[in-house]
């Protein structure tokens, strides 16, 4: 049962990442693209966790945690740059 659920979840997350990539390519404005990339890293966290699930190993937590932290910080940095024209004032 878990195998089938795992395949369905992998397919759904992959489709979600493809849709995010489409929005990042066509996005009419800059915040649209930032939002698309932000959602893409969020989905890639889940994809990495599912990959660890598939291989039955716990070694991929650290990668997921690193992606979460760096993605958040990069989103905040780009938004700060758009707002103020400078990151650290």
């Amino acid at each position, binding site marked *: 049962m*878990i195998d089938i659920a795992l395949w369905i979840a992998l397919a*759904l997350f992959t489709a*979600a990442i493809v849709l995010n990539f489409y*929005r990042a390519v066509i996005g009419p*404005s800059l915040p649209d693209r930032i*939002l698309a990339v932000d959602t893409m890293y969020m989905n890639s966290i889940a994809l990495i966790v599912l990959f660890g699930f598939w291989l039955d190993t716990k070694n991929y937590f650290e990668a997921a945690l690193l992606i979460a932290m760096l993605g958040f910080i990069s989103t905040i940095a780009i*938004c700060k740059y758009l707002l103020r024209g400078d990151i650290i004032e």
Partner: protein
Amino acid sequence: MLESLLEGVIAFMLIAGGAFAFIGSLGLTHLKDFYMRLHGPSKTTTLGVGCTLIGSMIYFSLHDGPVVQEFLITIFVFITAPVSAHMLAKSALHHKLKPDASTRGNPEELESEKPKHTVEESPQGNSPLP
């Protein structure tokens, strides 16, 4: 018995997480303006990632003792997603992105962008024309 029940819970969590993330990304692709597009992913992908991580946590806790590292990622994602959505909304208001006509609300940052509703005086009675 308990094992098969927990397997059902794990399978439900995985499929629910995938469905949430897919619906959020569908909203990101199909909605009309940025302010509509923002709320889809920022709500649903948080829940999708959370569901997937909790399913994974239950699965690894079945074999060898309790595992709590995934819960750390879940808490981190739940804290940081609203902050990044707030910053994105602020930068969109700063850039004065045009809202769609069906978007509700009228923030003061966009006051100059929206068309002014001017009430024209109706020429009743004292019209100069015959």
